[in-house]
């Protein structure tokens, strides 16, 4: 179970204007501004739920995911995941989570995918029997048999993403964070990844938190949506709460953003 209570986070960023003169000025005197990335954010997610975490760019999504992963310590508030505070028990916590960053790969670039997998087996200290079992299952579900011996750099984006997802699940985590997993993928690959996640959730009861701008992903996978804007939770409900009978989710969402001034 994931719990966030009154979590806040503020960043200090140095300001810099454009132009030759400003370059000289900023050389001698730095100005800062404070960005309130998260402002009193609270929600609870039960085991096995599939949640879509959406919001416009700069809303605070990545900050939340970082806090939930244990990479970032909030200024205020509590966070508990399966009874552990993520940043206080980093190693224990990370054993139970899997993360897929859409833009960056965790596989080694020049070596066959299977070698990256073996390294991950060592990193997560997965015993050989479970590793074999998981690997076979994931290979079957994601159709990876042909890809395992190929170096990562030779894979297409769709193939690579399937391998990424598999890599993040080798250690059988109870919670999966997906950050833009289908970005840049063609239609076939998108469907493959989506179907896989649905199956995973059904069979393993994996909690899935999905961050994406692709509304079709959200509609296909998640029932619950948490919408964050300017660091605050603006909506914690279902797709219908946004759509309200509109045909296009995207348009409804854009209207929603506008009405809240974000």
């Amino acid at each position, binding site marked *: 179970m994931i719990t966030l209570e009154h979590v806040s986070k503020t960043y200090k960023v140095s300001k*810099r204007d454009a*132009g*030759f003169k400003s*370059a*000289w000025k*900023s*050389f*001698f005197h730095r100005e800062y501004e404070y960005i309130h990335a998260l402002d009193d954010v609270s929600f609870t997610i039960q085991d096995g739920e599939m949640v879509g975490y959406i919001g416009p760019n700069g809303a605070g999504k990545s900050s939340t995911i970082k806090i939930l992963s244990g990479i970032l310590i909030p200024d205020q508030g509590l966070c508990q995941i399966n009874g552990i505070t993520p940043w206080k028990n980093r190693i224990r916590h990370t054993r139970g989570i899997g993360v897929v960053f859409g833009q960056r790969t965790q596989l080694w670039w020049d070596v066959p995918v299977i070698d990256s997998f073996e390294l991950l087996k060592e990193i997560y200290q997965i015993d050989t029997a479970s590793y074999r079992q998981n690997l076979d299952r994931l290979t079957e579900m994601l159709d990876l048999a042909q890809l395992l011996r190929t170096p990562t750099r030779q894979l297409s984006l769709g193939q690579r993403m399937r391998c990424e997802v598999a890599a993040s699940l080798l250690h059988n985590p109870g919670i999966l964070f997906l950050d833009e997993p289908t970005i840049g993928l063609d239609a076939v690959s998108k469907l493959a990844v989506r179907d896989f996640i649905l199956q995973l959730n059904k069979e393993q009861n994996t909690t899935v938190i999905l961050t994406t701008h692709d509304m079709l992903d959200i509609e296909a996978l998640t029932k619950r949506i948490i919408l964050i804007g300017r660091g605050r939770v603006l909506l914690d409900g279902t797709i219908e709460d946004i759509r309200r009978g509109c045909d296009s989710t995207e348009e409804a969402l854009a209207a929603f953003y506008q009405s809240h001034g974000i």
Partner: protein
Amino acid sequence: MEYRKYTAFFRLQFSMGLQYRTAAFAGIVTQFVWGILEILMFRAFYQTDASGFPMTFAAASTYVWMQQAFLALFMPWMMDNEIFSNIRDGNVSYELCRPVDLYQMWFVKNLASRLARAVLRCMPILVVAAFLPYPYGMTAPADLTSFLLFLFTLMTGLAVTVAICMLIYISAFFTLSPDGIRMAALCVIEFLSGAVIPLPFLPDNMRKLISLLPFASMQNVPLRIYSCDLSGSSMQHAVCLQLIWLLLLVTAGRQLAVLALRKVTLQGG
């Protein structure tokens, strides 16, 4: 009107160079330490055998400080990696979409970034070095003429350095990903320009040969003119040689650039 394009590039690159103030401070401290250690090393040799020194110890100290102060102007390895990756990826063809002469644009960009970096660093180093006790610090120039000549050859030396860099950039059009080769070339250039040890320290017959190469026209000429190590007719020869090399290198560079671009537009990068 043509010039405005290039001055715009110059200003942009210059402002970029100014942005990193903590980096500049760190760089100055680093170079200062380098300078001190280098001079201490020379001192150790001097104490062993003063007669083996081809110049006065004070002149050697001055050379070291000048080299550090103007490092950004002359060091061959301070090249723009973006240009190399653009050539490698083929993105250089996008540069061709703009109505500028590629050689001139890159030349001006390199000049600007080197000058920006040098401007930041040279004053603090020179000022502090001037206050160091003799003979560890900087000495004043001997007379006005040699100082003016020094400034002149400093600029021409910079131009020669950039012209050599241009040839290295252009060579990347013709060879495939030569990182190791480039490093080798840079090492050789660094040695031959007098950056590892000042050229007067090398054995005489070697030195005569090396002074004819373009690399001796980079930092070697201005720095030695300043401390009057180069004077009289040998100085005149050196300056003339420097100008000749500048002409040759720029001409060769432009010609090769034309060939390279022809290759790019034919093959699509």
